[in-house]
């Protein structure tokens, strides 16, 4: 009987605590600056060394000849596993993660050429709430 009472009091005690939930569209989790989200390429720094293509575990990166006569990486978001190997391997730091992991598409056209690499929703998101 006492155990059951204790169970009920433990449960009722929780009713008076604020919920822990991150209310997603209004609040966003603060994952810190290392969070691996969208990958963007800074063309001014890119030296077209193709090291990112070589280290990619999912072969998600392919190089494309662009209008300025140089080759830049395009990413296949149907293969990219966001492991960050390409960012780590990049000798100049031109490939960077954006703190935005909400990568959602409504069609299968998920291969992004270098010219389409930065979709509108790849912008960094405000991080407001932290559980820890």
């Amino acid at each position, binding site marked *: 009987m006492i155990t059951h009472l204790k169970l009920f009091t433990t*449960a009722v005690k929780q009713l008076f605590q604020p919920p822990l939930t991150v209310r997603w569209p209004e609040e966003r989790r603060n994952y810190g600056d290392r969070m691996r989200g969208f990958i963007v390429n800074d063309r001014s720094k890119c030296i077209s060394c193709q090291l990112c293509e070589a280290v990619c575990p999912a072969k998600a990166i392919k190089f494309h000849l662009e209008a300025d006569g140089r080759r830049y990486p395009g990413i296949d978001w149907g293969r990219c596993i966001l492991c960050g190997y390409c960012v780590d391997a990049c000798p100049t730091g031109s490939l960077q993660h954006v703190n935005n992991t909400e990568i959602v598409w409504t069609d299968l056209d998920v291969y992004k050429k270098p010219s389409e690499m930065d979709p509108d929703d790849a912008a960094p998101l405000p991080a407001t709430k932290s559980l820890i």
Partner: protein
Amino acid sequence: MDFPSPLSGDLVAALVFPGVLGIFGFLVVAIWLERKLVARVQWRYGPLYVSRPLGGLLQPVADLFKLVFSELVLPRHTNRLLFAATPILLFFAEGLPVVFIAAAPGVVMAPHSYGLAIAVVLVLLVAVLMVAMAWTEADKFTYIGAMREILLTAAYEVPLLLAALAMFLLYGTADPHKVVEVQSGLWGVLLNPLAFVVYLVALLMATTRFPFEIPEAEPEVVLGPYTEYGSTLFIYAFGANYVKLYVLSLLGAVLFLGGWLPAAGVLGVLITLAKMGVFVLPAMLVRAIYPRYRIDQALRIGWGQLLALSAAAVLWSLLAAWIW
């Protein structure tokens, strides 16, 4: 009669409380309250965005519309007529005992001197329809769910009957009005606490709440008797459970908590409603507290401790009535 003449008591009882409006309002509020309460115990919000200012109160309504407008699947291998008819029958049969229970003086559909006894018997008879429903679905998981339902019914119906009997013996009547009148001094819960405890546990078993949520145990038998139902039939099949909770808590409020006392009329109805919360709130909260028992453990509780307790409650009543 406190009500103006065009609104006679039985009409109010049939349409507003404890009749149609009460049942459907209870369905919406209870489902919302259950999800909200459980969510708050679990450090989260529960239904929220569907109606932000109301705290997600419209969530059951949205579910209802979704279910009504989704495709109805009638399996080919079943008896389709029975497949469609049993959940509807079950839903209304679960609500039938309300006819004999008064929510306030005069607010009763069919006044009868054995009203409460009839209501108890009706509540217990409905389990047959539940089993029939599970049987017509012709699915292995529903068979097992039906078997568990039968076993569980066998475990709770004797203690439930004995608990009600103890109270009838104590009061010397089964007329809802007289039962409440007798309690004007002391409520039934104080006169016979044993019967109250038995009734509470039997209510959890009868409405298959945790820890006795065994017929529809998800990891073993998917949804038990409700597995094959979708669309509108699911509302009837699943809503029947909540109707049963409504009926049993109304019965409990009248039987143990003095019904509409100390008021009458519209206020009395509200007081009855509030007293139902004593049964409904724990029944909602246990979902967040307990896992479920195995069927053999539930049977051991039902045929063991619960039966002994209910027999003791009857003896207590006999003694009390004799001393009185």
